[in-house]
C-alpha cells in the first residue's frame, strides 16, 4: 500500500481522515514496512467499511491486514444499534468463529523429541485433516440443533473433554443467543459428518516449542515455560459456517437496497441490526460460533487420546481458546460513556485487558491470552490484552501472520515435497494428505509473523508474552 494520504500518528498508528462518504476515519496499526507490504485493496476496503451506517469511532486494521471480502481480513468495526448500526456477514467471514486453541502439555521439548515421529503419526491418525477426510462422528438433525445451542458445553456433556476446559474458552464455551432455527437445513446437512475435523487450507494442528519468553510473569500465569511444549489447534465452524456465510451474504446483498443502505461494494452486504435479516443472521452466526467451539473441543479430546497413546498420563489442560471471525455484543467506553456495541472482528482477536469481568479468574489480573497463529515453518505468538487496547480498537489485536502472496503465486514458486523435506531438515515434521496444499501454504507466502507480533506490541494492542515454534504440524 502506498502511504500517500495516510497521516502518521505514531510509529505504528496511521490514520485516513474521514472524507467523502466516510462516516468515521480509518486507522491502521502497523509499521511502515508492514503497510508497504499490504495490498492497495486493504485501503479501499477499510475506507468502504468506514462508510457503513452506525459505525462508531473508526474502522480499524490490525497489523496483519490483507485483502478480504468487503472487510479486509484483519479488520475491526463496531456498530451502535441505536444509531442505525448494521451487522455484516462479510464482516464476520465464511469460517465463522475460526480460531486457535492452545493446550499445555507439561512435557519438555526433549521429551517430545524422543518420540516426535510416533506422536506425529498418532495425531495424524487421530484427527481427520484435509479435504475428503471424514470424522467418526455423525449427528442427526436433532442432535445438530442441540449442539448449535450448546457449543463446547455440549461437547463436554457428550464426553469430549472436561468441565474445567470451559473456563478457558471465550463465552465459557457456549455463545448465548444462538438461534439454531435460523440455520438452514442445507447448512446442517453440510456439517453432519464434519464434527471433529480440522478442515483444509490454513488450518492446522501443531505441537510447538516455547522458544522465547518475553514476559516471564505473564508467561508463568499462562503456563508457558521456555523449552516446554504446547499444542495449538487452528480451525473453525467448517461447512456449517461456510453455508451460513454464503446464504446470509446473498440475502443481505439483495435486501440492502430495501433498507436504504448504499453499498460501495456488494461484498460489504449488511443489514440493520434491528431488522429481521439482521436478527436472523445474528442468531445463525452465534449458532455457528457454538459449532466452532464444539469442533475445537472434540478435536481437543482426539488430541488428548493421541497424546495418551504416546505419553500416558499427560492431561493437556487448556491455556485458552480464542475466536477471530465473529461479531459480538460488548460494552465499551466511547468518549467516557459505556455503550453496547456490535463489534465485528474479521481476522482479528478479542484482546480484553486486565480486570475485565468476562475473563477467567486465573487471567483476571493479566488480561486475555491473544494467540497469533503462524506458519508451519516460522512461529506463532502468545500476547496478552492490554488496558489501552479498548481505546485503540475496541480491545482487539491481530490473528495471524496474514498472507503476503496469493496461492496462485505460491504454487508457481514452491513444491510441497521440497517444503516438507526442507522443514524435516530443520526438525519440523509435517503430516499432510496434499503436497499441493502444503505448497499453497508455504511459509514464504506469509508476512513475517514476528514483525506482526512486534507491531501489535509496539502499538499497544496487546503485549508480547511468548514465541512458539513448530515441532510437528498436521496440515489441514
Amino acid at each position, binding site marked *: 500500500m502506498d502511504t500517500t494520504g495516510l497521516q502518521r500518528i505514531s510509529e505504528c498508528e496511521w490514520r485516513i481522515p474521514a472524507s467523502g462518504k466516510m462516516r468515521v476515519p480509518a486507522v491502521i496499526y502497523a509499521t511502515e514496512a508492514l503497510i508497504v507490504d499490504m495490498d492497495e485493496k486493504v485501503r479501499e476496503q477499510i475506507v468502504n467499511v468506514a462508510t457503513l451506517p452506525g459505525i462508531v469511532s473508526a474502522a480499524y486494521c490490525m497489523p496483519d491486514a490483507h485483502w478480504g471480502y468487503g472487510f479486509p481480513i484483519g479488520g475491526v468495526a463496531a456498530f451502535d444499534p441505536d444509531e442505525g448500526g448494521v451487522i455484516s456477514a462479510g464482516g464476520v467471514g465464511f469460517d465463522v468463529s475460526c480460531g486457535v486453541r492452545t493446550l499445555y502439555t507439561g512435557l519438555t521439548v526433549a521429551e517430545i523429541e524422543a518420540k516426535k515421529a510416533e506422536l506425529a503419526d498418532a495425531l495424524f491418525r487421530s484427527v481427520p485433516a*484435509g479435504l475428503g477426510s471424514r470424522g467418526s462422528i455423525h449427528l442427526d438433525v436433532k442432535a445438530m440443533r442441540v449442539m448449535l445451542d450448546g457449543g463446547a458445553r455440549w461437547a463436554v456433556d457428550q464426553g469430549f473433554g472436561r468441565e474445567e476446559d470451559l473456563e478457558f474458552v471465550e463465552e465459557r464455551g457456549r455463545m448465548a443467543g444462538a438461534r439454531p432455527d435460523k440455520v438452514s437445513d442445507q447448512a446442517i446437512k453440510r456439517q453432519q459428518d464434519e464434527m471433529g475435523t480440522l478442515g*483444509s487450507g490454513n488450518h492446522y494442528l501443531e505441537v510447538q516449542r516455547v522458544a522465547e519468553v518475553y514476559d516471564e510473569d505473564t508467561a508463568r500465569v499462562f503456563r508457558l515455560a521456555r523449552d516446554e511444549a504446547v499444542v495449538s489447534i487452528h480451525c473453525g465452524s467448517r*461447512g456449517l459456517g461456510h453455508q451460513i*456465510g454464503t446464504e446470509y451474504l446473498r440475502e443481505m446483498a439483495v435486501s440492502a437496497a430495501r433498507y436504504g443502505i448504499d453499498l460501495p461494494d456488494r*461484498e460489504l452486504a449488511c443489514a440493520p441490526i434491528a431488522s429481521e435479516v439482521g436478527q436472523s443472521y445474528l442468531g445463525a452466526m452465534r449458532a455457528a460460533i457454538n459449532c466452532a467451539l464444539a469442533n475445537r473441543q472434540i478435536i481437543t479430546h482426539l488430541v488428548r487420546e493421541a497424546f495418551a497413546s504416546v505419553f500416558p498420563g499427560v492431561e493437556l489442560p487448556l491455556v485458552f481458546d480464542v475466536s477471530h471471525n465473529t461479531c459480538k455484543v460488548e460494552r465499551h467506553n466511547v468518549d467516557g460513556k459505556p455503550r453496547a456495541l456490535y463489534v465485528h472482528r474479521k481476522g482479528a482477536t478479542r484482546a480484553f485487558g486486565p480486570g475485565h469481568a468476562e475473563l477467567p479468574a486465573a487471567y483476571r489480573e493479566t488480561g486475555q491470552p491473544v494467540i497469533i497463529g503462524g506458519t508451519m515453518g516460522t512461529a506463532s505468538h502468545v500476547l496478552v490484552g492490554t488496558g489501552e487496547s479498548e481505546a485503540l480498537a475496541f480491545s482487539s489485536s491481530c490473528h495471524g501472520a496474514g498472507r503476503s502472496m496469493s496461492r*496462485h503465486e505460491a504454487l508457481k514458486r514452491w513444491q510441497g515435497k521440497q517444503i516438507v523435506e526442507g522443514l524435516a531438515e530443520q526438525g519440523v515434521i509435517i503430516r499432510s494428505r496434499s503436497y499441493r496444499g502444503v505448497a*499453497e501454504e508455504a511459509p514464504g507466502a506469509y508476512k513475517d509473523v514476528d514483525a506482526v507480533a512486534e507491531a501489535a506490541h509496539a502499538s499497544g494492542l496487546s503485549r508480547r508474552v511468548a514465541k512458539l515454534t513448530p515441532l510437528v504440524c498436521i496440515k489441514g
Partner: protein
Amino acid sequence: MEPQTLLSGRWEHFPHGADIGVRGIAPTLAGAFEQAALALTAIVIDPADLDGDEQVEIDCEAPDAELLLVDWLNAIVYEMATRRLIFGRFEVETDGNRLRAKAFGRPMDADQLELAVEPKGATYTALSVARGEDGVWTAQCVVDV
C-alpha cells in the same frame, strides 16, 4: 497445474491476496459458466485427471447473471460437500437469470485422489459476468478457501 484450453472455452485462476480467483472464458454464457465450474474444481484437483459417471442436477435462479454465477458455484460447493463428489464435467443451460445444469463426477476419496484445498464458498469479490467486444463471455469471481 496449467489452465486448460478447450475447443468450447477455457478456464484459468487469477490471484487474490488470501484465496483464489476462478475465471471461465467461452463463446457462450453457458460455456463460460461451465468453464468457471471447472476452474472451481481445479482449486481441489486438476479436472483433466477426473473421470466418473455420477450425475447431479443443479437448478439456480437469480436477479442477474453475476448473482447467478455465485449461486451456481455455491451450489457446486454444496453438492461437493454433502455428496462428497468431485466434478470433472458440466453441462449448463442458462439465460442469465435461470440455470439448469448437470454435473458429472466421482467420489471424493482422499485415499485415491490428492485433494488440495476445500472451497468454502464463492464470493462477490472481483465478481463479473460480461461479454467482450469480440463476443467472448467471461465469468469470474474469487472463491474463499
